[in-house]
């Protein structure tokens, strides 16, 4: 960013921001709340979820606030009818595919945008078995919204481990290891950063999951400790 500032209007309020600031930065500066799902300060923004879209000068398409830079003298509306329809419909469609029970922030968004949680009856849900293949965390991809954060922190955004990828495409996309091998066979170093950035209950520390399952402390010990070599002998 340079010292140069530009001026724009957000929901009728004139505001000055440094050149290069995103619309999300500017909205925060103006005290206006814009919802986000995929965006996380620690990961490279990809503009995937599109619930942060805003209307810039009534353009043909809406702009993702997390990545779109502020344009000088533009008029931005963060919550008009078009924006509301897109946000509400995205949330309704997401809710029809994904188990959002353990995503309170998204639940709040749904309430805020009057999203109908039965808007899409008979929808194909992304179903999958819970994957419990290591002592540190469990993976429940029925709760995965495909924000990509786990894949990103496993790769160039943090760890450079490259244990994770996206497989298939479109609605059938899922997060996976190479050929779906178990985490213990994969390059995973169990740094835990993927669990830390997961916005839903898709990735969960095993201890937390064990508590939910009502494990005794003995079970917890057995399930979450790796056998050390000296014990094994």
């Amino acid at each position: 960013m340079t010292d140069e500032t530009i001026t724009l209007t957000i929901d009728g309020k004139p505001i000055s921001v440094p050149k290069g600031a995103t619309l999300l930065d500017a909205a925060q500066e103006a005290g206006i709340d814009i919802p986000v799902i995929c965006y996380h300060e620690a990961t490279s923004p990809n503009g995937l979820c599109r619930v942060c879209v805003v209307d810039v000068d009534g353009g043909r398409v809406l702009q993702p606030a997390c990545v779109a830079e502020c344009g000088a003298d533009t008029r931005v509306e963060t919550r008009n009818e078009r924006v509301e329809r897109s946000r509400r419909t995205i949330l309704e469609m997401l809710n029809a595919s994904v188990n959002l029970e353990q995503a309170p922030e998204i639940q709040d968004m749904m309430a805020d945008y009057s999203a109908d949680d039965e808007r899409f009856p008979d929808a194909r849900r992304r179903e999958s078995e819970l994957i419990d293949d290591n002592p540190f965390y469990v993976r429940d991809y029925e709760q995965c919204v495909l924000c990509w954060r786990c894949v990103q922190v496993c790769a160039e955004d943090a760890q450079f481990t490259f244990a994770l990828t996206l497989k298939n495409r479109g609605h059938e996309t899922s997060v996976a290891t190479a050929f779906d091998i178990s985490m213990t066979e994969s390059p995973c170093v169990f740094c835990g950063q993927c669990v830390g950035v997961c916005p839903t209950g898709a990735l969960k520390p095993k201890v937390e999951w064990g508590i939910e399952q009502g494990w005794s402390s003995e079970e917890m010990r057995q399930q979450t400790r790796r056998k050390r070599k000296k014990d094994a002998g």
Partner: protein
Amino acid sequence: MIADIDAILESYRGRGREALLPALWDLQGAQGSISPENVHRISHILRVPEADIYGVIGFYTLFHDEPTGRRIIRVCADPTCALVGADDVLHELCDRLSLSGDGSTPDGEYTVEHSPCLGMCDYAPAALVSERGEHDIALPRVTVDDLLDKRDGAYFTPAGDDESVLLDPSLDAAPQTLAGYGDYRALRQAIFEQSPEQVISAVEASGLIGRGGAAFPTGLKWKFTRGAAGDIKYVVCNADESEPGTFKDRVLMEQRPHLLLEGIALAAYAVGTGKAYIFVRGEYPNATAILASAIREAEAAGALGEGIMGSDFALDIEIRRGAGAYICGEETALFEAIEGKRGFPRMKPPYPTTFGLFGAPTAVNNVETLCAIPGIVRQGADWFRRFGTAESAGTKLVSVSGHVGRSGVYEIQPGITLRRFLDDYCGGVIGELRTVLMGGAAGTFLLPDEIDVPLTFEDLRAAGSTFGSGAIMVFNRSTDLRDLLRRLGLFFQHESCGKCFPCQLGTQRQVEILERLEAPRAGDRERLHDIGLTMSEASICGLGHTAALAVLSALEKFPEIFDAKE
């Protein structure tokens, strides 16, 4: 076989991720699928994580990570082929092979799949056949016997057209060969008599706008690319023609490969690069083979390669084969594919002219656009402007299919009305016209009383329609419009890359509703409307922006089909 794999892997030593798609093609060609063992080995050679390679294989539908039959048969399931019984072919094929649907026979001989549009709507129904160890072949007007027989590798070449600038009127002259095409006169003229800036000025003055669907001024694109900072630049020819109902670029590549190569060379000269790529969709094996042979021929004749025609201009043109992903027609997704990644569209800005292939300024143009360049350079902008209208300058190729007397690729002068075009050129509509789908699956419907619209970019836009890639699909009253919409919905569901939520979820929710059009639920119209506008307004790229156009158009033009079927 093991020796083959070793040789393949060795041939990639020293290369990086950009070689991933070619390497996967080679590995799959040898064994029919790509095994975990081979992924492991190529991972080390190209220095790409195994997980990433697995992700890439799963993204492209022509790649297989599980064993396949020795012969893979892919039958087109899109609208034009459906009109002439593609479903029957597929069902009978499965019956005769005792398959219940897509899948492989237990003896490992056959794998049967349905495919998105193969770009052979003028020879419907079409199929793509991959026989292990041989070149893939695209088969026209298939019958089940064709598909089960041992076919030789003779590929078909479509018939020519009567009045043509881009197409060759005399196929007897064998325009696929350099001898038939002639010297690269426009290139010679440019290199020895014109500066790159003069070439760009001529293209700007010609009024040529992109023929791939987005209609961006070509000269301006080149000017931006030439003016962009950076020593390394690229020209990329987008030959990933995959819009259902569109096959003009295939015909150009098969009939006029040297016209395209000369156009690419002129683009490279103009923007200032010595490297160009042609990204051809994986479903076009015939075009790919013809282009490869044409490049060798031109290099041998000194028209491409080092020191072209004795000048110091050099150009290496490399063909890259796509692997089954409509999204790669989106220019930034195409760059990702060449770079060896999943074909996800990038966020724009930055635009390709400043940040394109490998992050370098890139001029990416459609096949037909590039084929118009030699004529403009040789005969001038004014000559080109004699054709068409002020805003739709030059001739335009259209792909016509469906219920018409003669489907095929036609070169038209923009300005002719759709009605006259269908009557005078295409042998008229077969039966009573119900609708014309303009622009392919990402297009809009015209009703019988709307076909007096002149075929120009500006008139179609004003009529709320689109020229798009020049697909014209004609349907008479025997057409089941609900089935048509369902197929369009399936196409987009299959082809959405899954990157942004609106399109990933919207194409799925949309097809769920389109599959129950005969017995809709209360509120389905409103659902389709909300899905459609959300995809159109909030998606990341052109695929999502247009994935509901036909449905939104149908809601307006055929409201009755969204009522329960009587």
